[in-house]
C-alpha cells in the first residue's frame, strides 16, 4: 500500500514538468559548481607546484653560490652572502610550508580562498610570517564561490521545498485528498508514503549528480580516503535533506493553503540559511570585538623602538630565557643580525598580552559561533562539508599551529649559528629542517562531521515528531 502511494507520487512527479525542470536545473548547477571547484583546485595545485619549484631552484642556486665562494669566489655583496646563516634562514633557504589539498577539495572552496594554504618560513617574527595573504580581488572574496557545497547548502533545500511545499495542500486543493482518505489509508501513512517518494527521488538524483560532479571536478576517487569522504559528503547532504523534507512535511501538516506553505517555507529557509548565520556573526563580533590590527601594528612599532633603544642590554635576558640558543663564548652585541633577532624576540614578548587578547577575542567569537550554529542546520552542513573537503576553518587552524611549530624549529636551527656567526656551507644546506604536514587525526574530523550530522538528524526527527502530531489534527474539511 505504501509502495502504491509512492509509485503514484512518482507518476505524478514524472508527469509534472516541475521535476524535470528541477532535475535539469540541479544537474546544470552541480556541473557548473564542479567546474568552478575543479578550476580553483587546479589553480591551487599549480601554485603549490610553482612554490616547490621556486624553492628547489633557489636552493640549487644557493648551493652553487656556496660552492663558488668556497672555491675562492667572493660573495655578490655584504647583503647577499649565503655564508651568513642569518641570510640563509631569512631568504636563501627560506622554505615553504604547504597545506596539501584534500581529495575532495574541489567540492568545497570553504575558507581556502581567504586563509593562506602556504607560508614562507623565515626567521621573522611569527606575526610577520602569518600576516601575508594570497592576491585576490576583495569583491571575489565577498561574493564567495559557486561550489558544490553552495549548491548543497543553499540550492538543494530549495529544490526539496519546491517539490514538497504543496505535498498535502496541493492534493487538498485539487480535491484528491478526500477521495484518497475515503479509502482505508490513514493520513499519516499517506503523508509518509508521499514524502518517502520525494526522499527517494531527490536523494537518488543528488547521489548521482554528486558522483558526476566529483568526477567532473577531477576528484581522484582512488586516492586513499577519497571514496569514504565522498560517501560521508553525500551522507551529510542526505541528512541535511531529511531536515528540509521534515520541515516541508511539518508545514504541510498544518493544513494551510499552498501559497501560504510556500511563503512559510521560503521564510524558514531564509531564516535558517541566511539570517541566523549572519546575525550570529554579528552577535559574535559585537560580544567579542577583535581589536583593530591597526592597534597591534602600533604596539609592535612602539615595542620595537623601545627594544632597539635598550639594544645590547637585552642579550643577557634573552639567553637567560633561551639557554639552548646561547653560543659558547661571547656574543657580539654589535652584530646586526644577532641584535635584530634579540630585539624581535623582545618585541614579541612585549606585545604578547595584546596578541593574547586578540586570540582570546577570536576564540570568544568562535565559541559564540559554536553555540549558535546548532540553530541553523545550514551552518552545521556547511561546516561538515568544508571539513570533509579539507577546507574548513579547523584544518587551517591546525595548519597554522603546525606551521608555528615548524617556524620554531627553523629558528632553533638557525639562531645558534647566527649568534655564533657560523660560516654556512653547502653541506649544511642538506641538513635543514623541512616541513611536512601532519594532518589532524581522522577521528577529529569524523567527530566534528558526525556530531554535526547527528545534530541535523536530531532536528529532523524533532520536526517529524511535530509533523506527526500536527497531522492528527489535520483539518480535512474547510
Amino acid at each position, binding site marked *: 500500500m505504501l509502495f502504491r502511494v509512492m509509485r503514484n507520487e512518482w507518476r505524478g512527479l514524472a508527469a509534472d514538468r516541475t521535476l524535470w525542470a528541477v532535475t535539469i536545473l540541479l544537474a546544470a548547477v552541480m556541473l557548473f559548481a564542479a567546474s568552478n571547484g575543479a578550476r580553483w583546485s587546479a589553480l591551487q595545485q599549480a601554485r603549490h607546484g610553482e612554490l616547490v619549484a621556486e624553492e628547489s631552484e633557489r636552493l640549487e642556486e644557493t648551493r652553487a653560490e656556496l660552492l663558488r665562494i668556497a672555491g675562492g669566489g667572493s660573495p655578490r655583496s655584504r647583503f647577499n652572502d649565503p655564508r651568513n646563516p642569518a641570510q640563509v634562514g631569512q631568504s636563501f633557504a627560506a622554505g615553504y610550508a604547504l597545506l596539501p589539498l584534500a581529495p575532495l577539495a574541489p567540492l568545497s572552496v570553504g575558507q581556502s580562498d581567504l586563509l593562506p594554504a602556504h607560508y614562507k618560513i623565515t626567521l621573522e617574527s611569527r606575526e610577520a610570517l602569518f600576516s601575508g595573504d594570497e592576491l585576490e580581488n576583495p569583491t571575489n572574496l565577498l561574493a564567495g564561490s559557486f561550489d558544490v557545497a553552495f549548491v548543497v547548502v543553499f540550492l538543494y533545500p530549495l529544490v526539496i521545498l519546491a517539490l514538497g511545499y504543496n505535498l498535502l495542500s496541493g492534493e487538498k486543493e485539487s480535491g484528491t485528498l478526500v477521495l484518497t482518505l475515503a479509502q482505508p489509508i490513514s493520513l499519516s501513512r499517506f503523508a509518509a508514503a508521499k514524502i518517502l517518494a520525494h526522499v527517494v527521488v531527490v536523494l537518488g538524483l543528488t547521489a548521482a549528480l554528486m558522483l558526476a560532479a566529483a568526477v567532473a571536478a577531477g576528484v581522484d576517487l582512488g586516492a586513499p580516503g577519497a571514496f569514504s569522504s565522498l560517501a560521508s559528503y553525500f551522507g551529510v547532504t542526505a541528512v541535511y535533506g531529511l531536515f528540509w523534507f521534515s520541515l516541508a512535511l511539518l508545514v504541510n501538516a498544518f493544513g494551510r493553503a499552498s501559497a501560504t506553505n510556500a511563503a512559510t517555507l521560503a521564510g524558514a529557509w*531564509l531564516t535558517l540559511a541566511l539570517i541566523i548565520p549572519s546575525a550570529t556573526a554579528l552577535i559574535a563580533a559585537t560580544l567579542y570585538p577583535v581589536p583593530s590590527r591597526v592597534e597591534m601594528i*602600533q604596539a609592535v612599532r612602539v615595542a620595537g623602538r623601545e627594544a632597539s633603544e635598550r639594544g645590547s642590554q637585552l642579550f643577557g635576558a634573552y639567553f637567560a630565557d633561551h639557554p639552548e640558543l646561547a653560543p659558547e663564548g661571547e656574543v657580539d652585541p654589535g652584530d646586526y643580525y644577532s641584535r635584530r633577532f634579540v630585539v624581535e624576540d623582545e618585541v614579541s614578548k612585549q606585545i604578547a598580552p595584546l596578541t593574547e587578547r586578540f586570540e582570546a577575542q577570536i576564540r570568544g567569537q568562535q565559541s559564540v559561533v559554536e553555540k549558535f550554529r546548532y540553530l541553523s542546520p545550514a551552518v552545521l552542513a556547511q561546516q561538515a562539508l568544508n571539513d570533509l573537503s579539507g577546507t574548513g576553518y579547523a584544518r587551517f587552524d591546525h595548519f597554522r599551529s603546525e606551521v608555528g611549530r615548524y617556524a620554531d624549529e627553523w629558528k632553533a636551527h638557525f639562531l645558534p649559528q647566527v649568534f655564533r656567526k657560523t660560516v654556512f656551507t653547502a653541506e649544511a644546506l642538506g641538513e635543514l629542517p623541512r616541513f611536512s604536514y601532519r594532518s589532524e587525526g581522522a577521528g577529529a574530523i569524523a567527530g566534528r562531521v558526525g556530531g554535526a550530522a547527528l545534530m541535523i538528524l536530531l532536528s529532523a526527527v524533532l520536526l517529524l515528531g511535530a509533523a506527526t502530531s500536527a497531522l492528527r489534527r489535520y483539518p480535512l474539511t474547510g
Partner: protein
Amino acid sequence: MVMRIARKELLEMTRDGRFRVAGGVVLLLLLTALGLGWSRHADVTAAHETAVAQEREIWEAQGEKSPHSASHYGVYAFKPTGRLAFFDTGTEAYTGVTVWLESHKQNQFLYRPARDGNTLQRFGELTAATVLQLLMPLLIILLAFSAFAGERESGTLRQVLSLGVRRRDLAIGKALGVAGALALLLVPAVLLGAAALTAATADSESGGLMRTLLLAGAYLLYLGAFVGVTLAVSARAPSARFALVGLLGFWVFVCLAAPRAATDLAKAYYPTPSAQEFAAALADEKEAGIDGVDYEDFLEARKQELLAEYGVDDVEALPINYGGWRFEVSEEYGNQFFDLHYSRLWDQFEAQDRFRQRVGFAAPLLAVRSLSMSLAGSDFAHFRWFAEQAEQYRRRLVAFLNNDMRDNAGAAAFSYRQDRRLWRQAPVFAYDAPDALWALSGQSEAVAALVLWPVLSAFLAWGAAARLKP
C-alpha cells in the same frame, strides 16, 4: 480612483498578519544592522585616527639615523573606512587595512579583517545594505505576489473589473499600495540613517550628502524593479501559487545564484595571478629592464646626464652626494615596474568587477550591490584610490629623504645622520577621498542596468495589466 485602490491595498497589507510579522522582522534587522554598523564604524574611525596620529609620532621619534635608514624604517599608512561603510561594509572585511611604506618596494596591504573574524562571516554580513538588497525584495514578493493572481482566484477581480475600473488604474494603484507599505518600513530606517550620516559628516561634509542621495536613488530603482516584476508576474500567472513560486525562483537566481556565478565566471575570464607569480614576474622584469634597458644602463644614462649637468667627468667631483642621488634613481627605476605590475593586477580586478556589473543586466542585485559599495566608499575602486595615493606618498617621502642625503650629506656616506628636525619636515600623508561623481564614473554599466530594470519591469507590468484576464 488610483489612490482609492492604493489605500485599499495598503489597508489590506497592514491588516495581514504575514506582512506585520515579516515587515516587523525586516525593520528590526534593518535598524539593528544600522545601529551596530554605526557603532562599529565609529570604533574603527576612532582607532584609525589614533593610529594615524601615533604613527606620525613614532616616525618623528625614530631617533638619529641616516635618511636612508629612516626610509627603511618606513611608515604605515592606514586605510580609512569608507564614509558610508556603516551602511554598506562592502569589501572592507576583505581588503588589508594597512600598508608599510618603505624605500625600494611597493608592498601589499596587510591584515584583511575577515581573517580575524569568525567563520560565519562568509555567510554574508548583516548590514543595512544587505537587508535592502536581499530581504526587501522578498518582502515585496510576499506583499504583491497575489496582487492580481490572488484576486482572480478569490473572484474579486471579476467584481472590480465589472465595475468598470480601468486595468491600468488597478495596476498603478497596486504598485502604489506596495510602495506605501514599503515606505512604512523604510521611513524609520531612513531617519536613523540620516541621523547617523549627519553625525558622520559633521566634520567632513564633502560629497557625503550627494552620495547618500544617489544611494537612496539606487535603492529606489532596485526595489522599484522588484515591484514591477512582481506585479507583472502576478498579472500573468495562472494562479497565486504559481506566481509565488516563480517569483521566489527569480529571487533565488537574482540574489543568491547570480552573484556567486558571476564571480566564478569573472575569475575564469580574468584570472587573478598568485602572489608568487606576481612577485616573480615583477622581479624578472625588473632584472631584465624595459626594452633591454636594465638598471645598470638606466643608471649609466642618468649618470651621464648628471655629469653633463654639472660639467664634471667623475662622480667624485660632484658637489652633491652621489649615493643619495643614486638611491633616488634606483627608486625611479623600480617605480616603473611597480606602476606597470600593480596597475596590471588592479586593472584585472577592476575587469572582474566590471564583468559583475554587466551581469547586473541579468540580475539587478549585482548592479545595485556594485553601485552601493561604490557610493558607500567601500568597493575595490576606493581601495585602489587609497592604495595609489599611499604609493604616491611613499615616493614623495622616500624622495624627500634621498634628496636630503643628496643635498646635505656631502662626502659622508652612511655616517651622515639626521634627526627629529628632518623627520618633522617630512611630508605628511593627507588622504584625499574621492567625490561622489568619481565613484559614479566607474559604475556606468551598473547605473545603466539599474535604470533599465525598473523601466523594463514597469513596461512589463503595464502590458500584463492591460491584458489582465478576470
